[in-house]
């Protein structure tokens, strides 16, 4: 698998740190994980790694838009015009709004399945934990639900099963947050409900990476 992670501002730093556990999980399951990070993120680097490794799974965390994904400088590095890059893979992008444009274009160009978000991806945060994201209990329920898609795919589940698992985890976290006495819980709850609504896929529901 190839994992592409930007890390140049607060939201991407949260996504970056929370994706560490996914790399550990993948390596435990004997996946060969190729990382593309920081200034390395570019279309040319990605095409090169794909050519050498022929990954079944590409995972991106960072910023996106309807038609593109952004590199570590906040510039588009993949867009609808280069969506063939995802051919013969299952791809999951934790990025804003990229499903309807880029995701659809990717599947039209031979991507087995593209999982992503139809709307902006919200992360609610507690200021106090800006430098310690893993201790931020406001962000955690949100990122658990986006991460579970990868964990489920790594276990050999299909795309639709993995999305269902994320919805189930979101439902559990929503109930916990509704009854939470934490003053910031409503912020977490609102972001989680919005992201859960936005999570979907294009392509084959039965696609797997194992």
């Amino acid at each position, binding site marked *: 698998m190839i994992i592409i992670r930007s890390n140049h501002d607060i939201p991407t730093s949260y996504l970056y740190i929370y994706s560490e556990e996914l790399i550990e999980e993948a390596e435990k399951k004997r996946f060969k994980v190729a990382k593309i990070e920081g200034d390395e993120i570019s279309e040319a680097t990605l095409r090169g790694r794909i050519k050498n490794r022929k990954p079944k799974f590409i995972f991106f965390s960072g910023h996106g*838009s309807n038609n593109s994904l952004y590199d570590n400088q906040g510039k588009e590095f993949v867009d609808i015009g280069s969506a063939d890059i995802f051919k013969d893979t299952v791809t999951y992008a934790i990025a804003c709004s990229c499903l309807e444009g880029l995701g659809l274009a990717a599947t039209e160009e031979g991507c087995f399945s593209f999982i992503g978000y139809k709307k902006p*991806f*919200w*992360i609610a945060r507690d200021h106090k934990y800006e430098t310690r994201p893993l201790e931020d209990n406001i962000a955690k329920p949100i990122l658990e639900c986006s991460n579970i898609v990868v964990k489920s795919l790594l276990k050999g589940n299909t795309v639709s099963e993995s999305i269902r698992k994320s919805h189930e985890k979101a439902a559990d976290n929503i109930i916990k947050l509704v009854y939470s006495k934490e003053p910031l819980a409503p912020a977490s709850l609102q972001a989680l409900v919005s992201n*859960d609504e936005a999570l979907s896929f294009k392509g084959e529901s039965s696609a797997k990476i194992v």
Partner: protein
Amino acid sequence: METNSEYIKKLVKERISAMPPDVSFSIGNFGDYTRNELLEEVDKDSEVGRAAIEMQLTFIRKMSGILHTQ
């Protein structure tokens, strides 16, 4: 008389105002917003403000269904 969109904006602002000040929202490549900055964006009717309104409306619509099924 308030129009529908004015009513929705007021509702969203009240919901955001009810949150403690030490919360921030990261909204992808739009950036990072404190509670008060988000309120300003809703007032300005910016792209971020409209995203905040859509998020709140999604929340209200979905939550009634979620709680109903529990």
